[in-house]
């Protein structure tokens, strides 16, 4: 059975097409200001990769912040539901899912069946999500992809007082002024986001195995900070940002 999932994220739209649980096509586009159009584009790309036509897809489920505005889908599920399903399918031993996206951070506790036991959201605040690294990379004047590797070169941990991305930007500018080495600042930025995610994790009570998904999982600096703060290793799937859409596609196959 071929099904698809569309994850209408705040920054990017992800589409995953599966056949009997295996991914056969996937694509990602920037949501921009016209997320519906972006989704159609991503869908076409995924179909292309899978080598099938849209009529071959039997069911489509949407998820993500903009799920009510997704094209093609017949129903939608919450991000929490999508994440849990997607992760358990790939890692049956997972019991905690941490999802750090562009505008949202989530901690989910799940059972071995992929059912959600508890979850905590850190939405509406840029400081607990990818948007924070973006504004910090601007303040440090480095491309955002370099922030992770740069922070791994840090030799010292410095505290960051600001809790808000806007204030942190001023704080970073001051630190740069005072000639603080950029790797140390980058590490402080990652430590700050990690501590927020760990607060969410503590709220639901985390237990291994802990799986990290979402776009920010690509950032090695953040992963390092997170593992230090959690005091345990995290599992990161290949294509961590597609897991929500994957879970939605699995949900489409269930019904």
């Amino acid at each position, binding site marked *: 059975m071929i099904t698809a999932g569309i994850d209408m994220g705040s920054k990017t739209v992800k589409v995953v097409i599966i056949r009997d649980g295996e991914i056969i096509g996937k694509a990602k586009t920037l949501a921009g*200001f016209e997320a519906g159009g972006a989704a159609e584009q991503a869908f076409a790309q995924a179909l292309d990769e899978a080598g099938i036509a849209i009529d071959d897809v039997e069911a489509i489920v949407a998820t993500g912040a903009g799920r009510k505005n997704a094209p093609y889908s017949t129903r939608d599920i919450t991000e929490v539901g999508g994440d849990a399903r997607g992760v358990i399918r790939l890692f049956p031993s997972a019991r905690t899912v941490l999802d750090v996206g562009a*505008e949202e951070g989530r901690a989910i506790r799940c059972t071995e069946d992929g059912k959600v036991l508890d979850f905590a959201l850190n939405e*509406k*605040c*840029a400081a607990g999500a990818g*948007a924070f690294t973006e*504004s910090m990379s601007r303040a440090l004047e480095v491309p955002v992809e370099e922030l992770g590797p740069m922070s791994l070169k840090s030799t010292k941990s410095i505290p960051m007082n600001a*809790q*808000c*991305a*806007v*204030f942190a930007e*001023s704080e970073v*500018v*001051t630190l740069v*002024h*005072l000639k603080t080495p950029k790797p140390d600042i980058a590490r402080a930025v990652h430590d700050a986001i990690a501590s927020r995610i760990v607060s969410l994790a503590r709220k639901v009570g985390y237990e291994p195995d802990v799986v990290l998904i979402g776009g920010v999982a690509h950032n090695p600096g953040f992963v390092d900070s997170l593992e230090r703060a959690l005091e345990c290793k995290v599992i990161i799937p290949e294509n961590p940002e597609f897991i929500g859409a994957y879970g939605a596609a699995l949900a489409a196959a269930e019904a």
Partner: protein
Amino acid sequence: MVEYWRWKEYRWHDESKDWRKGEFITAGVDVGSVSSQALVVVDGELYSFSNMRTGSDSPESARKAMAWALEGTGMTLDDIGFVVGTGYGRVNVPFSNKAITEIACHARGANYMYGSSVRTVLDMGGQDCKVIRCDEKGKVTAFAMNDKCAAGTGRGMEVFADLLAIPIEEVGELSLQVDEEPEPVSSTCVVFAKSEATGLLREGWPKSKVLAAYCSAMAHRIVTLLEQVGIEKEFAITGGIGKNIGVVKRLEDEIGIKALPPTYDTQIAGALGAALFAQNLLKKKLAEASKT
């Protein structure tokens, strides 16, 4: 390159007064995360003050602000009997005799600026937002301070001024130039509100409408903090945002109470309160010294 968020720094002193005839000369220095003020009070009357951007070094900012407040007056630091530091950087005012929180200082300052009928003071600073309830003497009876989040602070407004390329002093007026009040921006977070605003501009919204939507969201956010502590008349506003008529008017409309009109620069409340505390402490100190 124009920096739209950069408001004008300035100083002032009372040229009609001869401070040498004064008995108690005290100063207050308010080092905030965004701006710093230094202020001199002579025998309970405001004499001089300065308002400038806080640099990366707090002690240096305190020194500069103080020097600027004294410029052209002939007064030096040695002539000042007692200095109180306040604000976020209060522990970093090297020449201060004591540090007092900005909560207590704002209440005291507002009491001077608006009179003894003030009971609720809203201070919106560069990186925080405070609601302070006080009695007729300017003593604090309740307070709440939010400095975690940029929404509802001066920095939040600076981000928007920058985004729309409008000098910050003009933001308030411009936001009122709308025929119909638009829906407020839905994001409470400044970072997300900024993306939302970019989208609105693309849809063809004029800058005035975008500002109106933002000021409206800011005002609503502040109102919830006010309601947390409770509002009792008379109501007064201090801090930089007091100069933003776009936020002030919308706030007044939502709570149904008019703020007392300012006759002093709203940004000096902290330093003024500090200087007045300094006067009390100086009198106490001299009284105790004369006993021994």
